[in-house]
């Protein structure tokens, strides 16, 4: 029989020698690395605005991960942003600029012109197109938007005057018919003029028609073909006062986005996933450490002091073990909107005694009869000293295995609560992402990435800790040790 493994360091070394231990430590190490990297990649202010729609307005909604292109013969459209000084939204890299020019027609009027040109070389159409403008006017000038395609077609998709004077913000969702502008009819009129089969006005999709090859099917999403090449957009303000100003931001939304796609509110799921790791780790590890430590100390205490102390601790353990924690948490969650810290506190409270108390008690009962404990008593060591110096260290390796094995349980618990919508109201945890996905019919709509990645995160983390636990178990349980 191999010699028993004593001490934490020896246990870790032995555990690293097993395959499970190696993988477990590797996976936990990866997660820990994430914890360090995540606040740099996605600072907390990103996460605190998880619920704000403004922040994510530049992303396409329900977009698949962009690396899916690697498995497909066609290349889906990416998001393209062209802007001129618009104050809204974060300034990002890879944002193109309009060229801005002014020319004076008379001393009283000027013409402002914003012009942009970009390549569209994807095989799929954009998800939608949007133009946001900010115009300071003193009089009522005329604003015209002209769309130029690779086949040299020019379409004036918009021509109107601002309805109010002063600073004037307009968001034209060029793809939507809810806007009061006649973009749809302008696009339809042009398309029919170049040979498209007419469709009812509510079926016109400018982001298809404007990007489609000329032909009868150019207004039918199922028949239209993408026209690749240089597109340009010109925004012209006629008869502007000398003090007038114009800013604009044009967005052509892609159908794929980022590493993990987006949800129905355009949020970047990758950021949610990244933040899920530290949240899950922190919750799982904190809950496991506190509860296991409390259980170990109380279990050893009961075994050592015996008598009434032991009785109270053991009966308390039985009581807490049969108490159903999840339903109680759900009840609390229904009554109060609790943050993750409160969830943690409540979970710890209900697990202050538990299975570990019983396991450690049996070990401590054994250790307490060892003659070095008697020796310690004979030279007058106090009871606490004996408990913490002589009995507790013997239970430490087991404690570590129990600790690693109890982390997944707590991660699952937190995920379950978040999934049913009773988790932290602010943080995007893995469970919360999956809950959102479930409530918004992600699988029904084929948005598998919304479910799969958070699920993988949970599975990865729990497997990591389970492997660690098994490795420790293998090392510390002589019957399971491999020769």
């Amino acid at each position: 029989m191999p010699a028993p493994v004593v001490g934490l360091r020896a246990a870790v070394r032995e555990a690293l020698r097993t395959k499970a231990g190696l993988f477990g430590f590797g996976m936990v190490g990866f997660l820990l690395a994430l914890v360090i990297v995540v606040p740099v990649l996605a600072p907390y202010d990103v996460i605190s605005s998880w619920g704000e729609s403004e922040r994510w307005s530049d992303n396409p909604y329900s977009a698949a991960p962009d690396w899916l292109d690697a498995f497909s013969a066609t290349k889906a459209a990416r998001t393209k942003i062209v802007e001129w000084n618009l104050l809204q939204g974060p300034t990002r890299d890879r944002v193109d600029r309009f060229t801005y020019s002014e020319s004076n027609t008379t001393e009283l009027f000027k013409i402002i012109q914003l012009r942009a040109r970009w390549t569209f070389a994807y095989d799929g159409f954009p998800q939608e197109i949007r133009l946001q403008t900010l115009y300071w006017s003193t009089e009522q000038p005329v604003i015209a938007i002209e769309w130029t395609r690779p086949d040299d077609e020019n379409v004036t998709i918009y021509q109107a005057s601002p309805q109010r004077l002063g600073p004037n913000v307009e968001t034209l969702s060029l793809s939507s018919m809810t806007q009061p502008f006649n973009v749809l009819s302008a696009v339809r009129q042009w398309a029919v003029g170049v040979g498209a089969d007419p469709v009812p006005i509510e079926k016109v999709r400018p982001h298809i028609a404007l990007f489609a090859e000329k032909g009868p099917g150019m207004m039918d999403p199922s028949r239209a073909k993408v026209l690749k090449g240089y597109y340009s957009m010109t925004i012209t303000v006629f008869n502007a006062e000398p003090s007038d100003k114009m800013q604009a931001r044009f967005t052509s939304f892609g159908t794929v986005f980022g590493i993990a796609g987006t949800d129905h509110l355009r949020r970047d799921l990758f950021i949610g996933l990244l933040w899920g790791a530290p949240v899950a780790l922190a919750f799982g590890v904190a809950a496991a450490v506190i509860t296991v430590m409390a259980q170990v100390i109380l279990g050893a205490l009961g075994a050592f002091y015996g008598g009434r102390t032991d009785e109270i601790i053991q009966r308390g353990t039985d009581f807490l073990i049969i108490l159903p924690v999840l339903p109680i948490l759900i009840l609390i969650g229904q009554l109060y909107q609790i943050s993750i810290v409160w969830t943690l506190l409540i979970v710890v409270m209900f697990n202050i005694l538990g299975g570990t108390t019983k396991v450690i008690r049996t070990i401590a009962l054994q250790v307490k009869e060892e003659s070095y404990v008697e020796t310690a008593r004979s030279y007058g060591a106090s009871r606490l000293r004996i408990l913490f110096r002589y009995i507790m260290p013997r239970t430490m390796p087991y404690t570590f295995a129990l600790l690693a094995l109890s982390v997944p349980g707590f991660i699952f618990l937190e995920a379950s609560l978040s999934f049913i919508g009773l988790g932290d109201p602010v943080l995007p945890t893995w469970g919360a992402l999956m809950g959102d996905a479930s409530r918004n019919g992600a699988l029904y709509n084929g948005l598998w990435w919304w479910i799969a990645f958070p699920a993988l995160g949970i599975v990865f983390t729990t497997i990591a800790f389970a492997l660690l636990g098994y490795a420790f178990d293998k090392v510390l349980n002589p019957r399971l040790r491999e020769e």
Partner: protein
Amino acid sequence: MAMLEVKDLHLYYRTSRGPVKAVDGVSFNLEAGETLALVGESGCGKTSTASAVIRMLPRNVHRYDGSVTFDGNNIMSYSNEKFRQDVRWKGVSIVFQGAMNSLSPVLRVGYQVTEPLTVHSNMSREEARDFAREALKRVRLPDYIADRYPHELSGGMKQRVVIAMALVVNPKIVILDEPTSALDVMTQANIINLLKRLRRDAGLSYIFITHDLALASELADHVAIMYAGKIVEIGPSEDIFRDSKHPYAQRLLSGVPLLRGTQAPQSIPGAPPDLIHPPPGCRFRPRCPFAWEKCEKEPPLEWGSRKAACWLLGEGEARLGGIAA
């Protein structure tokens, strides 16, 4: 005055069948620098006597009384805390049976050796380390042992460490409970020589608990033979080994096998009595070949110069001689 005077010490354990009379009226004296061997079969109450002296009692104590005077103080009257501080600290150390297991496997030897000291004083780590080195040197162990874990040591080394641990507080009395029972003969001899040297150097008194008569004869100045919770014979080792008076002591001594000679080792027929219901009168009576009607009363321990609890010593001496011849 003797350094340790034990008078009429009783220690009974409570069990479901009734009280176990493990120590039943034991008395002995221990002078400074002297060694007393407590000898007897397994279960005769040797270890219980030691526990009773240093008050290391289990939970199920039924009766615990008598008088124990240490250095002129009646330590039986001490509170538990005072006992812990005064007696276990400076007075009496104990080396437990099975010293192999008297070391925690998770702590370094050097740390453990000084534990008895650090428990009672705020000793700095460096100071404790020096003490540990010093203590190990006293039991002839090299310095580097201090940084080892117990499982890296041999049985004899562990025994030395445990002895060092008992000595580190400079006690006046060391109780050695079968200190060599699991060791080979050579290692036993080493340990015994070490114990002799330490006794000489530090002026220690030993209470040496053993079932090994050869070792007892080697180390002890006085020997007390215990049977069924009582001392049946006590006296200078010369007297006991050369000319024991109690039939049980005689048989115990002739139970030792001899390398040369034709005499086969003798066993005593029957089994030690049940300590819950010991036989009335002399407890050895059911197994004693010399038992007679007087034995139904309990014999006194003192007979003139000799101390043996047997009626044969008085009026029956002639009888004993007659039968022995």
